[in-house]
C-alpha cells in the first residue's frame, strides 16, 4: 500500500515537473511575446481638445477580424477594417474604413509602440483619425492621431486610454467623460 502511494506520488511529481519544463520552454522560446519598437513621436498631445482639433474624423466602432500585415522598408504595419457605429466628428464616405497602424504580429512576436498593440479584433474603440498620406498602402486608409494617443478601447461604458499618454488623457475612465470632453471644447 505504502509502496503504491510512493510510486503514484513519484509519477505525479515527475509528470508535474515535465509539464513545468514544457511550459517553461514554450513561454520562454515559442510563445509570441510583445516586442517594443522605440519611436520618436512627432508630437505628444496634452489633451482631448488638442487631438480633436487635428482629427478629421472621430468615430466609435468595432475592429473587424480582417487585418492585413504590410512590410514596408524593414518595418511592419497593419491595416485593420473598422466598422463605424457612430460618427462624432467629420464624415466618412463608407461604413467600413481602413486603419493603418505601426506594428502588428510578425509571425513570431507582437510589435508594439510604447507598449501599445495594434487594435484587437472584435474590440470596440473610439478613434481620433486623420487621412493617411503616404506610400505604405495605396488603399484609402486613416491613421490614429499620435500613433496610439487617439485610440480608446471601449467596454460598455468604460474606456481604456492607450499607454503612455498625457495625464489629462490617461485619467479618462468612461465613454461619457470622453464624449463630454469632445463636445465641451
Amino acid at each position, binding site marked *: 500500500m505504502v509502496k503504491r502511494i510512493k510510486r503514484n506520488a513519484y509519477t505525479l511529481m515527475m509528470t508535474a515537473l515535465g509539464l513545468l519544463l514544457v511550459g517553461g520552454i514554450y513561454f520562454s522560446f515559442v510563445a509570441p511575446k510583445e*516586442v*517594443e*519598437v*522605440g*519611436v*520618436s*513621436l*512627432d*508630437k*505628444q498631445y496634452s489633451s482631448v481638445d488638442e487631438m480633436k482639433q487635428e482629427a478629421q474624423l472621430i468615430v466609435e466602432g468595432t475592429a473587424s477580424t480582417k487585418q492585413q500585415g504590410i512590410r*514596408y*522598408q*524593414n*518595418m511592419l*504595419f497593419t491595416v485593420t477594417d473598422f466598422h463605424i457605429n457612430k460618427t462624432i466628428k467629420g464624415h466618412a464616405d463608407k461604413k467600413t474604413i481602413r486603419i*493603418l497602424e*505601426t506594428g502588428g504580429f510578425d509571425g513570431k512576436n507582437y*510589435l508594439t*509602440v*510604447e507598449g501599445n498593440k495594434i487594435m484587437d479584433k472584435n474590440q470596440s474603440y473610439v478613434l481620433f483619425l*486623420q487621412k*493617411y*498620406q*503616404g*506610400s*505604405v498602402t495605396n488603399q484609402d486608409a486613416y*491613421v*490614429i*492621431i*499620435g*500613433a496610439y*494617443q487617439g485610440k480608446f478601447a471601449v467596454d460598455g461604458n468604460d474606456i481604456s486610454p492607450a499607454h*503612455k499618454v498625457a495625464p489629462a488623457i490617461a485619467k479618462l475612465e468612461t465613454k461619457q467623460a470622453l464624449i463630454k470632453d469632445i463636445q465641451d471644447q
Partner: protein
Amino acid sequence: MKKGLAIFAFLLVLGAWSPTFAYVLWGYKWASPNITYECDMHGDYTTQCNNGKTEWSNWTDVNLSYSSNPGITTTAGNYGNVSWSGLCSVGSSSGSTVYRMDISINTYYTDSYSSQKRKGVITHELGHALGLSHENRLGPGGSVMYDNDGRTVYSPTQDDINGVNAIY
C-alpha cells in the same frame, strides 16, 4: 533621546535623497561595447547620423565603428503621416542580447526639420539602439531620449551618457 534624534535625522536625509540618474534602460544590450554601424542615407541625413554616432562613441564607453555588414543600420524613407519621425526595431536578438538593430527615419516629418532637430531624432534612435528607453522625467531639455520631437537637446546629455555607461 539623542539616539532617537540621530535615527530621525538619518531617516530624514535618506528620505530626501533622490537618485542622481533618471535614465531608463530598454532591456536590450549588445554582447560587446564594440558595435558596428552604417548610415545608409543621403545628404544632411548622413552628416547628422555620423554626428550622432560620433557623440555616442566619443562620450560613452561604447565604440561605434563603420561596417558594410553592420549591427546598427540607419535608413531614411517616407512612411507618411504615421506620427513618428524615427523608429528603432530589434532586427535580431537572443534573450536580451541584440545582434542587429534597424533604425528608420521618417522623412515625411524630418525633411522639414532643421539639421539640429533632425540630428536629435537620429541621436534619439541611436540611443534606443544602444539600449536606452524613453526618459521624460527630466523634461524636453534633460535627455535626448525625451519621447517626442519637442525635445530641446539634440546630443546625449550626462544622464544619457550615464545610462549607456551603466549598460556597458
